[in-house]
């Protein structure tokens, strides 16, 4: 692996050296030297931010909004956010003390973990899961305890699997549903069973719901809306995916006042506040972005059906993702591990995907294909993958 575990450098802290380099770094270098690549390796919408949202930010700059905001974020945005969460999920947060605006969910996640973990506290993380969960936990002094999920269970984490891995040191359960990379979604009943475990064993739940708006032909359940859960949940949400605003670097955290205050303490020294123009844009998104969300979801849903059908027809079994914008086919029949598959596919067929192993051990044998990509590109990519799989078929008979 790419760890620097054994190199002796005293320039870089031990704790940072021990974090493995990102599994997708080497693809950057490969890609840089290639032309005509179709990328299903992205993690963001192919839409640009809707014009009215961009325009609102430009207008705020014209009016001279170029200063710091409150550490919490602008009160207007928090108020609108409180209304938004109440309307969608019937959860009630006090915009004065229970909501804060962050530099993306990325920062919110880091704050949440650092605010609650003592050295050695264990964090249960469904595997596969988003790439930041593990390193952020380690940097916050916690210990990662992966909870395996399997395609047979639609990559859902089961309450029983969580319970099996509890120890006296377990403090946090980190949920990320709809899931990156699998597209799995947990239903109300499944979440309710997890809630029972959380209550019984006094777990704190960090729920990364950045893909909450991107669910297909179903409703999202907000973890904090389950009976008794709001008091033990740190809800993380954002604008990046739903409103195609990845570059704005704005997101939010909602939590009980005591925890939020602790997160704010770190945020005020480490980031101060999220960019004001991005907060202005986020406000416009909440106020008037609903039609855009609906239109984008409708389009992702069509592409989702095309890519899932296409991959299955190629002979790469693909579970039907219910949320986010990723398909997660198994590449086992080629006999290649996911890293080799992704690398060979890029070199031979010029299609970029992300190896499932980048998301945890349980992602081995799979690759992540993002369908937030134009339909003709998806079609061309499917043709190329089909030809590649035909050439490499044979792993099957081994």
């Amino acid at each position: 692996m790419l760890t620097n575990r054994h190199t002796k450098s005293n320039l870089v802290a031990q704790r940072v050296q021990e974090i493995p380099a990102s599994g997708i770094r080497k693809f950057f270098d490969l890609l840089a030297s290639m032309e005509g690549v179709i990328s299903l390796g992205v993690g963001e919408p192919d839409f640009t931010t809707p014009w009215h949202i961009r325009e609102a930010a430009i207008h705020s700059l014209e009016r001279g909004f170029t200063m710091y905001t409150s550490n919490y974020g602008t009160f207007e945005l928090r108020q609108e956010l409180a209304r938004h969460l109440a309307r969608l999920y019937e959860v009630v947060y006090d915009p004065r003390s229970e909501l804060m605006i962050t530099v993306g969910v990325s920062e919110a996640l880091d704050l949440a973990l650092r605010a609650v973990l003592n050295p050695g506290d264990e964090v249960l993380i469904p595997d596969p899961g988003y790439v930041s969960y593990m390193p952020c936990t380690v940097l916050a002094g916690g210990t990662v305890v992966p909870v395996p999920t399997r395609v047979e269970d639609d990559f859902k984490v089961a309450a029983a699997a969580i319970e099996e891995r509890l120890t006296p040191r377990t403090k946090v359960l980190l949920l990320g549903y709809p899931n990156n990379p699998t597209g799995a979604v947990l239903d109300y009943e499944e979440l309710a069973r997890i809630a029972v475990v959380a209550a019984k064993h006094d777990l704190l739940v960090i729920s990364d719901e950045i893909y909450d708006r991107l669910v297909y032909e179903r409703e999202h359940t907000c973890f904090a809306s389950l009976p008794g859960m709001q008091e033990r949940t740190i809800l993380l949400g954002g604008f990046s995916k739903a409103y195609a605003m990845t570059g704005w670097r704005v997101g939010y955290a909602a939590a009980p006042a005591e925890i939020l205050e602790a997160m704010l303490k770190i945020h005020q020294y480490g980031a101060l506040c999220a960019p004001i123009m991005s907060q202005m844009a986020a406000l416009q998104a909440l106020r008037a972005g609903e039609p855009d969300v609906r239109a984008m979801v409708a389009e992702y849903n069509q592409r989702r059906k095309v890519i899932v059908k296409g991959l299955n027809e190629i002979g790469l079994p693909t579970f039907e993702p219910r949320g986010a914008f990723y398909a997660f086919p198994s590449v086992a029949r080629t006999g290649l591990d996911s890293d080799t598959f992704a690398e060979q596919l890029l070199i031979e067929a010029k299609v970029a995907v992300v190896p499932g192993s980048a998301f945890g051990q349980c992602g081995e044998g799979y690759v992540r294909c993002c369908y937030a990509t134009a339909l003709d590109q998806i079609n061309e990519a499917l043709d190329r993958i089909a030809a590649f799989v035909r050439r490499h078929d044979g792993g099957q008979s081994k």
Partner: protein
Amino acid sequence: MGLSAKESEILCTLERDPCVSTGQMATMTDLSEDEVKGIVADLKQRGIILRTRSVINWEKAGEPLVTALIEVRVTPQRDVGFDALAQRIARFPEVRSMYLVSGTYDLAVQVTGRTMQDLAMFVAGKIAPLDGVQGTVTHFLLKTYKEDGVLIEGDQQPSRLPIAP
């Protein structure tokens, strides 16, 4: 007559991308190919799908078209109002689109041709002399910023990172 949810989904998809194959449309809408064919045929028959056209940047292709917007003031006629004269004008192949509008003039006529001279001659020779036409004002288009919903932009388009977590 209203549209069904499937009809509406098919129309929105075709408006965005008329090249979607029947098979792919069937996958996207959870219908069979025959059902898709039936719905599309019916929408054409009802005059809801008019036709499929490519939006082309002729200027970039090196064969610029000249386009003009012509304001036409007319005298409405008894019984037929504006329609009889409007339809006469609309039949000229030079006329690309045409509308009856409110405001200081009556008909907004978009015409295209190969040269400015062609269009000037067309207006002077064919439109202005018509009985009932009181006057015309011709605006030649100088630059296109957006064509049929497509922004005409410079070459520098931002792109996403090809690989991201």
